[in-house]
């Protein structure tokens, strides 16, 4: 990966990377990717992927409301809040 591509990925992941970090990050990422490419040593054609170690079925829950309002508790951790809302810098109106 080149520096440009690293910047693109950093944007996708919403990570601010300063110029000082950029070179070492590019270097590390490339080393790791080279290492990961070792996977290509084996032919996996036709092998079913395993997404989860326990290949069991999903358990479902009943449609019940048990939660009570805990807004004030949750808002305690909020970096910025007002009138029961979490605040963020103005999101440009879409319409």
């Amino acid at each position: 990966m080149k520096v440009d591509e690293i910047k693109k990925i950093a944007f996708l992941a919403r990570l601010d990377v300063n110029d000082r970090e950029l070179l070492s990050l590019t270097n590390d990422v490339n080393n790791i990717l080279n290492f990961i490419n070792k996977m290509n040593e084996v032919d996996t054609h036709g092998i079913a992927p395993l997404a989860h170690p326990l290949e069991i079925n999903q358990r479902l829950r009943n449609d019940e409301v048990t939660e009570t309002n805990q807004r004030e508790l949750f808002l305690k951790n909020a970096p910025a809040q007002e009138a029961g809302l979490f605040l963020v810098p103005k999101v440009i109106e879409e319409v």
Partner: protein
Amino acid sequence: MYHKTVSELSKALANKAISSVELTKLYLERIKQYNPLLNAYITLTEELALAQAKQADQARAQGQATLLTGVPIAHKDIFCTEGIKTSCASKMLDNFIAPYESTLTAKIKQAGMVLLGKTNMDEFAMGSSNENSYYGACKNPWDIERVPGGSSGGSAVAVAARLAPAATGTDTGGSLRQPGALTGTTGLKPTYGRISRYGMIAFASSLDQGGILTYTAEDAALLLETIAGFDPKDSTSAVEPVPSYSKNLNDSLKGVRIGLPKEYFTSQLDTTIGTTIHTAAKELEKLGANLHEISLPNMGLSVPAYYVIALAECSSNLARYDGVRYGYRCQDPKDLLDLYMRSRGEGLGAEVKRRIMIGTYTLSAGYYDAYYLKAQQIRRLIQEDFIKAFKEVDIILGPTSPTTAFKINEKVDDPVAMYLADIYTVAINLAGLPGISIPAGFSNGLPIGMQLIGNYFAEAKLLNVSHQYQQQTDWHRQMPSQFN
């Protein structure tokens, strides 16, 4: 008293040889004395601990004590503990007071155990040395210039230096077993799904599993009985009955088939560790077990496949740390994008960012098949290797770590070298199997860990073999002299 195991402390409390308050004070004293040097704890919950201890003593006086009532414990700072700072060793969560309790810690609370504090770890459990902590590296009590392993380094050190009789941890690619090995403690990672993940801050959801670090396998059995079981809040937790793990500890090892994978004993393994593990295997043979050489042919691919899967999952799991609802928010964001970029850029550490970058890249358009899908296919091959092996043997035995504890800063500039510290452990997570690391000797004064791997939900057998081994050896009873 701090030499005693959980089950010994349980008896001492029952016999009124000591009260929980006295015991708790003893550990709090030790923590205050040694933690500045070791950095095992991020948060000390002194007031809470004393209150819980008092409560435990009262419960005992009223005849309402369980086996674990009044026994102190420490939690890895990855478990949400209501009303207590839960940082995951990240600047991102430095100000986060968990508003709810994880299932694992709730069960421990329910059993009447006393919480001493929250332990140090690699940030978001990403690391094998505990050097990636916002709160600084944690030191190995056997040599404070060395790492204790990671990511559950603080929990391992707390137990190794007897700053807690037991501690909880998590294991995504070896994070309980490797620090267990490097600190001379017993680290148990149960089968995926055995313990609820609810409230355990996620690193890689399909690999993460909670567990414990203790002095002995007997203690691990006792604690596992308490924390295991299906949880309706975690639909990936298993609907399997929880056996009484303590009951089978003394079963004979006669006829137990133990497999030694030839792929574990290669030139990558430190020779002293190799010899030590073979000696330990012989010890088990003396107890009646049969040793077999087995093969896990795809073992060599486990580390790259593991890192692809773990990093892809982490890149998504950590997207929630965006500075909007909780956690770190950068100063004066000029717009929404700036808020995201800088809150995450400043709030997350270098290794975490590296991993998010790789994970984001491998999932991005055009690369999914080459990386994620390929890694999942290799995951299948690795699982099949184990399934085949467990048709021939009951337990797989090998080293936990290719080396003993390495020096702090030795590998920080080489992430790939650091990733290879997990070479013997990650395959177990990919397959979702239970594994345990128990002390099996020393090399130059540093502990060596032996890893035992069991079949799905065969924790009882793992603990039985480990306990029998610990009945014959006293490696697990050794303690770093500086802290004795």
